[in-house]
């Protein structure tokens, strides 16, 4: 496969993975409540995740270890276990939200309550993992995820003011409901900087057999893919800023978000929204389930791999099976997927330093990355943004929970 094709595929994967239920919910909320003001949060999150994704690919290519594998080796079982526990808790919540997103997409189109769709959707997700190969998931679902470009089209159609967008790029303090502002900002960071994304990416690099010659490809994929993903997320924010903000619509249910595309694009926009929600959440659900399986298997030494038949990686398979089953059953209860999403995104931001600091140590350890270690820019950017996200979350989450 030529390097160019590899880059293209990697980019498509990244775009599809970036815009999932978390990104849609947080940016729609942000645009609706604060207009263009929170674009800086999307930008910051995108920059940070671009660094992290590039780093995870580089680690895999040079050390031939995935992040989790290297974590246990370098820091021992205690640190590994702590990250595993926090991973599992958050991944479960986010997976539940993604299943919720898919179920809602089906509800939008059929009128049948999302609670009825939770188990069929879970079954479908499981089947794709059971029967599919890594290539199918990476390429198939992600290519379908390009439907998310509809948000970019909608944003263009609405002709937003470039001056206002430019203002939003600079961080600003809220003039109205500061607590809500920071809670949304934290959610945006958590949605963009999702650990499961780069754990998945590093496992993918191993499954695709990357080595040092792939470092250039890796960098291109990370920058273009994440950059484009960030652009899509910003498009959602822009559309919400232009359509919901002036009307005072602040979505507390996903169903309302469908109006964002039906306004500029009519009936086709409505169906494309449902399709985007379904496909992007499916992609994210697959990545989340796999990332959790990888987390267990790579730290505990099990046989693993999506290209391996289930019976040859039974414990690996058992993890995602149990996870999907548990979460689907949970969503039958009718928990509001939008609220679950916002909370889980904020929690993701809260534990960022726990995820990024050990990772950064690995990326500066010549035993693992040889002479391909981090420069001071990547180190500084990731540290600064993780700490910022976490501190904000520490303050915003409890106050939002108590007030909301």
């Amino acid at each position, binding site marked *: 496969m030529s390097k160019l094709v590899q880059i293209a595929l990697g980019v498509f994967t990244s775009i599809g993975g970036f815009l999932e239920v978390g990104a849609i919910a947080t940016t729609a909320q942000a645009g609706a409540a604060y207009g263009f003001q929170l674009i800086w949060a999307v930008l910051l999150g995108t920059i940070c995740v671009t660094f992290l994704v590039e780093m995870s690919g580089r680690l895999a290519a040079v*050390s*031939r*270890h995935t992040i989790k*594998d290297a974590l*246990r*080796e370098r820091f*021992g*079982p*205690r640190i590994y*276990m702590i990250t595993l526990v926090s991973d599992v808790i958050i991944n479960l919540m986010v997976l539940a939200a993604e299943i919720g997103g898919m179920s809602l997409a089906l509800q939008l189109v059929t009128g049948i309550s999302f609670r009825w769709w939770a188990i069929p959707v879970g079954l479908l997700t499981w089947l794709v993992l*059971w*029967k599919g190969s890594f290539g199918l998931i990476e390429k198939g679902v992600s290519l379908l995820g390009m439907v998310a470009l509809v948000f970019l089209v909608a944003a263009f159609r609405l002709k937003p003011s470039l001056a206002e967008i430019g203002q939003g790029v600079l961080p600003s303090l809220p003039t109205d409901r500061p607590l809500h502002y920071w809670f949304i900002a934290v959610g945006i960071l958590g949605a963009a900087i999702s650990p499961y994304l780069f754990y998945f990416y590093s496992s993918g690099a191993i499954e695709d057999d990357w080595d040092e010659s792939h470092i250039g490809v890796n960098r291109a994929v990370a920058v273009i893919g994440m950059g484009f993903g960030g652009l899509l997320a910003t498009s959602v924010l822009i559309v919400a800023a232009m359509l919901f903000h002036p009307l005072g619509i602040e979505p507390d249910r996903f169903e309302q978000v469908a109006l964002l595309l039906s306004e500029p694009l009519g009936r086709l926009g409505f169906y494309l929204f449902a399709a985007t929600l379904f496909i992007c959440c499916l992609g994210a659900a697959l990545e989340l389930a796999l990332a959790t399986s990888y987390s267990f298997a790579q*730290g*505990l*030494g*099990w*046989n*693993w791999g999506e290209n391996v*038949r*289930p*019976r040859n990686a*039974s*414990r690996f*398979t*058992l993890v995602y*099976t149990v996870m999907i089953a548990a979460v689907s059953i949970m969503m039958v209860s009718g928990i509001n997927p939008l609220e679950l999403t916002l909370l889980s995104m904020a929690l993701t931001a809260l534990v960022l330093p726990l995820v990024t600091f050990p990772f950064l140590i690995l990326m500066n350890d010549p035993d693992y990355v040889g002479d391909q270690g981090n420069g001071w820019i990547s180190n500084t950017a990731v540290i600064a943004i993780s700490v910022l996200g976490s501190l904000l979350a520490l303050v915003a989450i409890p106050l939002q929970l108590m007030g909301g």
Partner: protein
Amino acid sequence: MDIGREILDQQLVDRTGVNIGKIDGVVLELRDGLPPRVAAVLTGGHLLARRLHPRIEAWTRRLTRGWGPRSHDPLRIPWSKVTKIGVDVRVDVDAHDVLSWEHWVRDRIIGRIPGA
């Protein structure tokens, strides 16, 4: 040899490339007048739980009572079987002879689902 850095928590791989487990423990042979020597590596059992905290080990033992393969003891691989130490630790063993929990999950759960 720095046991902590080079052996412990490394990935054990069999002669065909199949993962066996992580090295959770090491058996040292103490010799009079000579430095101790690595006699064997250990994987599995409740060793990992014990390294985290004795209470965690008690908890995992209670959880897995009545489940899984007959023996919950760690797998012991003599040092003489180690063929290469690099990215991982290769041993001259066939994984299918020793993967007790993996096979139990395969036979009792995963293997029973169609299409495995």
